[in-house]
Structures are given as C-alpha cells and as structure tokens.
C-alpha cells in the first residue's frame, strides 16, 4: 500500500513506493502447459526398477 504522510499543507506520496507500483513486472512463474510430458518424468519412469516380487512360500517337501 501507499505510504502517505499528512501534513498541514497537504499530502505527499512516497516516490520509491509509487515507482514500485508503477513497475509492474511480468509474472515470475510460467503457467504455460507443456506440449509433451516432462523429460524428467520420462527418465524416472524408464530408470526406476521394477517392484520386487513377493517371495513365494517355500514348497513343502513331498512325503512318500
């Protein structure tokens, strides 16, 4: 917000704050959608090892 100072002879505006409001920089983060899936996601998908399977229960020896 602007900082104003009340004085007997009127109002003053802070030049630096006003210039900051006038500057209006561009948005810092792009919200643009990606045309393809991110490469990092693809690499992670390729390199990630398969989930280890559950070991089977040892077979019971056959009884004769």
């Amino acid at each position, binding site marked *: *917000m*602007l900082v*104003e100072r*009340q004085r007997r002879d*009127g*109002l*003053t*505006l802070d*030049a*630096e704050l*006003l*210039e*900051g*409001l*006038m*500057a*209006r*920089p*561009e*948005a810092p983060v*792009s*919200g*643009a959608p990606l045309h393809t899936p991110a490469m990092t996601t693809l690499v992670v998908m390729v390199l990630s090892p398969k989930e280890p399977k559950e070991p089977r229960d040892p077979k019971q020896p056959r009884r004769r």
Partner: protein
Amino acid sequence: MTSSAAVAVGAVRVLGADALAPYVLTGRALLPEESAAVRLSLSALPPVQRPPAAPPDGRERPWLRAWIDWGLVAVAARLDPDPWCVAAPVPQGPPPCDDSAPRHRSADGAVGGEGWVPWSLRMGQLASLALPGLDGPVHQAARSGALALARGATRALLRRDFATAARITRWLAWLAADGVALPLDVALLTEDIALRGGDDRCLLDAAIARRLLGLEVPTT
C-alpha cells in the same frame, strides 16, 4: 483528507494517463472533480524535472515514472480547459528494437541492442502511453519495433501472463490504429486475452485495446 482519498490520489499516479482514458476514448468533457483529483495527485508528488537516462544506462523505475507522469500531464492538459502550471519534461526515449534484435542482449551488449524480451516488457510497462493523441519518442520506438512487440505479446500469452500480454497488446492496437502493418491478428489476440485474463487491470488494457481497434463503439 481521508485515507481512502490518499489512496485514490496514489492510484491516479499509478494509472497515469489511463485514469483519463474514458474521456480520451469517448470524447466526453473532463469533469471538474476528475481534474481536481489529477491536480491534487501531481501536487502530492510533482513530476521529476530531470528524468534519468533511459535503461539500461539509467535507472529503470524513475525513468518509467517520468514517462507515466508525462503521459498523465499531457492528457490532462489537453482535456482540461483551465490552464496547467504543472510541467513534465519529455524523458529520453527507449532504445530502438528492430526486427534483427536477438531475444536477449548479447554478452558484450554491442550488437542487437537490448533484445526483444526486455524491450517489449518495458514497453508494456509504458502501456498507459498507448492512447490516441499521445505521440513521442516511446511511440516512435513502438513504430520501429512492431515485430518485437508482436513477439513479446505472443511470448507473454504462451506463458499465460495475461497482464503482460494485455499491456504489450495495447501497443499493437495503438500501432494498428496508427496504420502500421502488424505480423499478427491483434483483434484476435485482444479477444483471447479478454476472455482468458481475469485481472481487472488486464481487462482495462484489453478494453482500451478494443476501443483503439474500433471493436467497441462509444455509447452516447
């Protein structure tokens, strides 16, 4: 003076000439209370009498304020029948940005000027000057940088930075009204920004662009 009035006085300065855009675009007479608000705002912080050099050599923010103040004073002096005693010197114009300009300035800064990305962003910050009847070094720079402005507006739109896109599109609309051939359909661009950009300031810029393009006819 109330705090809300003080904020309104500051808002007039932030808007610059856009505070009086309804009168410029419709041709209606300036109301006395509007004129008084502009005079009060300019008395609260008089325009800089020695503007700094244009960036990148000079400081950017005081230079921007000097230009925005110049636009406000020029429009107010034209609309107001009473004489104005506030002077706003014409600051140095921005560097040109022709079609061969790179995206960004080269490392040595010797060739290609500043690059169309920072140049178009800075022109967008001066969008309040893109009004009928205003003309000066910034407008001349816009005439010589139509392709850079088109690139800047397209880049901002692809980034979904609609506020920046609307500001740069203001200049494209001003150029179209000035008879400059453009490399894109600025009417379509304006409509897209107006539909997808939700910010109030973005909608203001889009509405002024529509007026500049003749897409909206002033109501009597």
